[in-house]
């Protein structure tokens, strides 16, 4: 097995893992703090990608599309939380599963009505449209390295926010014990709106970043839905650190699995999740 190839695979795994982190970090926060299961999180990824397609198409530059996806996502998340999810916080898991199942269908129909069903590509920004020779004769797309960097930067930002700031501690507290938030005199409603908006923004940013990599097409979000839940479960509910390491672990296992054990790759991730649940039923990094 050539070392160059292994290195390339690891780099691929990290890039795929970090993108997964971006998506599942929002998911783990939303569930950790609000105890709400959001099956429509994959659709948010798709909407982010289409936002990038529309804006990059109109303005010709992806750099405008990324902040637009982030801010638009935050706004959209806040509206969703106030309008719908607020009333579903105490409801049973069954209601949340069905509400978000309905959202998947409605988002898909809205996309089909507003835009069309064709495949659209989003141009990689000219500045990054080249391949960086990494090792031997295998080169790696500069844009993918940029995505790697952006994801790491966002991850660092989130760590500082969650671990250092007061609001971050409130989020951690809420993740551990939702009732405690009211005791601490924090306006729970505002916290939930913020968390949901943040989670949505992160998912849409991930979509916008992925758009140039995989182009935009109907139903592109579905693939990421289940894998991001697996990351949340393995990482532990409400734990950003858990989501980070779990995402990297899955990114590597999935990529290396596909390279060396193609047949088993499909179910390798699920076996990993089953093992983790048996060993630590509340996830690797959840506080006991």
């Amino acid at each position, binding site marked *: 097995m050539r070392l160059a190839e292994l290195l390339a695979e690891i780099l691929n795994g990290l890039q795929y893992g970090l993108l997964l982190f971006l998506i599942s970090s929002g998911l783990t926060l939303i569930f950790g703090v609000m105890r709400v299961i959001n099956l429509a999180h994959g659709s948010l990824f798709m909407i982010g990608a289409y936002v990038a397609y529309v804006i990059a198409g109109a303005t010709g530059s992806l750099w405008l599309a990324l902040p637009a996806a982030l801010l638009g996502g935050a706004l959209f998340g806040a509206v969703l939380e106030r309008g719908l999810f607020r009333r579903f916080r105490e409801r049973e898991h069954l209601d949340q599963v069905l509400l978000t199942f309905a959202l998947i269908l409605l988002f898909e*129909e809205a996309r089909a009505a507003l835009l069309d069903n064709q495949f*659209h590509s989003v141009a990689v920004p000219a500045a990054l449209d080249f391949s960086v020779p990494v090792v031997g004769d295998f080169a790696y797309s500069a844009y993918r390295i940029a995505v790697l960097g952006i994801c790491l930067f966002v991850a660092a930002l989130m760590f500082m926010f969650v671990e250092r700031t007061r609001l971050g501690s409130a989020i951690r507290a809420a993740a551990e014990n939702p009732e405690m938030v009211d005791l601490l005199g924090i306006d729970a409603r505002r916290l939930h709106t913020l968390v949901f908006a943040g989670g949505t923004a992160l998912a849409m940013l991930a979509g916008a970043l992925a758009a140039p*990599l995989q182009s935009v*097409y109907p*139903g592109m979000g579905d693939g990421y839905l289940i894998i991001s839940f697996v990351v949340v479960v393995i990482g532990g509910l409400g734990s950003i650190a858990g989501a980070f390491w779990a995402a990297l672990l899955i990114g590597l296992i999935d990529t290396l699995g596909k390279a060396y054990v193609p047949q088993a790759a*499909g179910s390798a991730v699920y076996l990993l999740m089953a093992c983790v649940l048996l060993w630590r039923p509340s996830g690797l990094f959840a506080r006991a």
Partner: protein
Amino acid sequence: MLHVSRRRLLGGAAALALGRPAFAQGAPLKVGLMLPFSGTYAALGENVAAAFELYLQERGGRLGGRTVTLVRLDDESDPAKAPQNVNRLLERDQVEVLVGTVHSGVVMALVQAARERNVLLIIPNAGNDAATRELCAPSIFRTSFTNWQPAYGMGKVLAAKGVKKAVWVTWDYAAGKESGEGFGDGLRAGGGELTQVLTLPFPETNFQPILAQLPGLGVEAVGSFFAGGSAVQFVKDYAASGLKEKLPLCGSGFLTEGVLKAQGAAAEGLQTALHYGDGLDNPKNIVFRAAFQQKTGRAADVYAVHGYDACQLLAIGLDASKGDARAIKPMAAAMEAAKIDSPRGAFSLSPSHNPVQTIYLREARGGENRVIGIAAEALADPGTGCKMG
């Protein structure tokens, strides 16, 4: 207006409690268009339906002396709902001819109904070999291709260029495996050899693991089969990994068909083989492309050609049986003997009712798949295992 979308309330369906209407000369003929109008393959479904209607309009909306009513049904490319959807068309809407579909899992339910009830079925796209091989039947026809055909053409071209060792990259599902076999047969016919088939679980889009392995395999060319969004990503990832110069990528036409603009520069110079392409200068094609552009505002593609030819084939059958869609024998005889004047170039049907057609060699230049040569002349699908009962 000929084109009838779903417009009856359930009340209408209840009125259907009466038995099957006897065939009356001149009574409107209902044709069921079961295609994907939502989900990943929606664009393909729309093109097939639009081209089918285009030819119908050219015939003034009448085939075999009967006015044709089209009944559209969105199959959502979901095989689990396919049996119920087929029932809706046959039992509730009383269609006499079935046309469909894109997803090869859904087409299985159509094939089952056609074989069991001896109803005329014209498949305008799904390429699963079985439909015109072991599952062939007198009432089942196809105007598109078998997965085997385009890939065989590409294999033959590579072998002719002196390629000795090549590898095939695709998803681990029916269409991927069948096209891999075609590619291997094409290579062997010209003295080449398919060393390996690299597969990914369907519908995986993380191609990096495969790309990183390619340099180390010691092959001279890489053939592949992907469609839709994944074809876009695979071609772009392939170019981004810098392999394009050292290890030329080629494949079945679907790698670039309908997605070439989305692939942009990454696809430049990429050679593919398919029974259709841009720049075919036969008169029928020129007229067809203009008419399709005028009707839909979109450029015609191979899927539109399939839809257009499906209606042409139906017309030939119905004219022969004077509009009686149940008279399979006379219709089949006429369709089997016919030479369809298709935009892709005239073609006839093989005994297993699959097109015997020329596979063109195309090269991606400036957002078009320009035809630059012939990969395989009048290629017929082997049709192994087809016993026409």
